[in-house]
């Protein structure tokens, strides 16, 4: 997982909580606040535009990881 630390910050997870790529993001409390954290980070750290449909498209931690990589690279 390329962006594990960032995903922890977006989801506001404790450091000792294990996360698994195939788990669904809802299991880690992915909600509108986490979405705002994600949009904020990408907005502040890249010029990439986020499509409104993107933000509701990913299901698993892997999807989220890949999404972040696609926007930051």
């Amino acid at each position: 997982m390329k962006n594990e630390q960032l995903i922890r910050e977006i989801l506001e997870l404790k450091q000792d909580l294990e996360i698994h790529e195939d788990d669904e993001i809802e299991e880690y409390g992915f909600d509108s606040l986490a979405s705002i954290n994600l949009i904020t980070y990408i907005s502040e750290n890249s010029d990439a535009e986020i499509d409104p449909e993107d933000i509701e498209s990913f299901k698993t931690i892997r999807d989220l990881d890949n999404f972040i990589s696609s926007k930051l690279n």
Partner: protein
Amino acid sequence: MISFTQIETALGSIVQSNNDISKSIGWSAEEIENKTGIKQRYLADVDETAEMLAEQAVSKFEIASLKDVDLIISVSNTQSIDFPNISNRIHSFLGLSENVQCFGINHGCSGFVDAILLTYSLFDSNFSKKALIITSDTYQKFINKDNRSIKTIFSDGASATLLTKDLETGWCLKNKVVNSQLNSQTFLERKLTNKDSEISMNGPQVLLFSINTVAKNLISICPQDREFILFPHQAGKIVIESLKKKLPSSAIILENYQEYGNLVSTSIPKLMEDNFNDYPENELMILSGFGVGLSHTSILLEKNKSL
């Protein structure tokens, strides 16, 4: 052409710090400020209504300066009385002539700019010469106490802006851009059929509209080679910082969300009240409102230099 003759505001009487809501929100005061950029909010007291805040704002005028007003437009999403609108109440409150045209716009953060656009039309067609634009909202009354994504953002307040038709030294309307996004009306809404008529907001979608659609379209009317003052709706830290990154360097972008939060329809008039007279040499400005709808209205104004 329009002169902004006087702008007055009145804020909710309860000043709420980040410490005050830290426990109920579940974030420390520092976390709230880091996330939102907001240091404090102004909340209307239990018996303080949008109508009352509007009266407080209007009361700051010398009554003599308002006696020949012929148009009152009010803007609000959160009247305590569904109808009539606040403009009628202010008309009677001031005891003006019965020839004054009064109407209201049920609109949010774009509403002030839309009301100015309407005023331009009525001035141009000679149906009006002096207008009073009232904005007033009390969003905090309709936000669930556990909704930490929006409880931390909004403030309650009202404004009264006196606009005078001024062909010599007024501001000319040079350009405008508007957007009304399809299928987004539920992203920020208050259903009267809901228990307690609470406001709901799809924060991510409203945020993306602001940093994508609004920024992209606002740029289309920004002068590239002349300095201008931008009075943007104070949607919050993320939106204002995004605008700073995307707009041309000719923009002087004003902000006060740190001190007042998001005042909804009163956001831009409050920003103008605080800053307008600090730029006496300013010849170009943009007023940019966006939010409920989802909608966006921005206007580019240029000071007349005929004299």
